[in-house]
């Protein structure tokens, strides 16, 4: 355990087991679920809700249940508050959880959040008793509105879903962190371990990664790398880094040199 208990992440009163959220999208084979979870030790694992023609669906759900990991259904692909709300309701029914990663996107190409529909859906789901974790932009004003609407956390994007571009605007993520008093989970864009570490150093409370793991050449290794990156960034944030300065500062004493 790399983070002391006193440093546990708590969302909506629930103590989570780590600061890494894992998405399962793009997973090449269900057989990788167990080793990936063992390497990542995620706090939650996200799943999508889709029509099914068989109960098994490749056994993903069974594999996740066997691992005893907390599931976080999302409303990926929803283009309106209405769609997102019914999808969340079905997720609650199917998975017996009232937690939802709320996604309402503006279009299917950019997959960027539509914050107007997102705010409507968030308010309605909170009213219906959901614990809402909204996937949002890196706009601190919207983050504050989501919290005012009752969201249990905010999940600003670092860069577009699946882009692997990391945190394109660190300044904005710091502003989101400063704007709200709920956990901030960096969502979307993480491509590698240093992205996850940076997000935590900027003040995020957790990081979500999906494609970065599932589409890496070695998903299990990347799961481990991201887990270490999240812990590294969290501890570094707490350690109080040295200030950046334009000029050098000797790390060896000047006095006492010979000759």
């Amino acid at each position: 355990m790399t983070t002391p208990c006193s440093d546990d992440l708590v969302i909506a009163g629930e103590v989570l087991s780590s600061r890494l959220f894992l998405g399962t999208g793009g997973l090449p084979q269900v057989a990788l679920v167990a080793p990936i979870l063992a390497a990542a030790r995620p706090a939650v694992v996200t799943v999508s809700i889709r029509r099914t023609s068989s109960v098994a669906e490749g056994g993903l759900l069974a594999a996740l249940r066997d691992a005893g990991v907390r599931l976080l259904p999302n409303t990926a692909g929803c283009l309106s508050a209405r769609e997102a709300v019914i999808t969340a309701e079905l997720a609650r029914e199917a998975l017996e959880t009232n937690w939802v990663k709320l996604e309402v996107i503006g279009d299917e190409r950019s997959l960027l959040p539509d914050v107007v529909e997102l705010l409507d859906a968030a308010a309605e789901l909170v009213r219906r008793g959901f614990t809402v974790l909204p996937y949002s932009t890196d706009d601190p004003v919207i983050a504050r509105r989501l919290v005012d609407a009752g969201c249990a956390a905010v999940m600003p994007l670092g860069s577009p879903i699946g882009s692997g571009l990391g945190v394109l605007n660190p300044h904005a993520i710091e502003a989101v962190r400063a704007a709200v008093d709920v956990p901030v989970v960096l969502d979307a864009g993480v491509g590698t371990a240093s992205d996850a570490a940076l997000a935590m150093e900027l003040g995020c409370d957790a990081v979500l990664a999906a494609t970065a793991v599932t589409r890496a050449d070695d998903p299990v290794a990347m799961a481990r790398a991201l887990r270490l990156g999240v812990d590294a960034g969290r501890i570094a944030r707490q350690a109080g880094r040295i200030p950046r300065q334009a000029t050098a500062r000797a790390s060896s004493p000047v006095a006492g040199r010979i000759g």
Partner: protein
Amino acid sequence: MTITHNGEALALEARATVADLLVLRFDDPRPHGIAVAVNGEVAPRGEWAGWMLVEGDVIDVVTAVQGG
């Protein structure tokens, strides 16, 4: 009668219930880890056995799949 199941037309005997549909499609009246929407509203698991379908109903049966 004819209903729409996951976007496709499906012929059912009159007076079929949600449970009947699930048996037909999943050989199980209460499959685990799924949810059912009838005409865009959730049909709670507890009501499947008694929920009578009618001509033109739109049924969605969903489960959890891979997702980011």
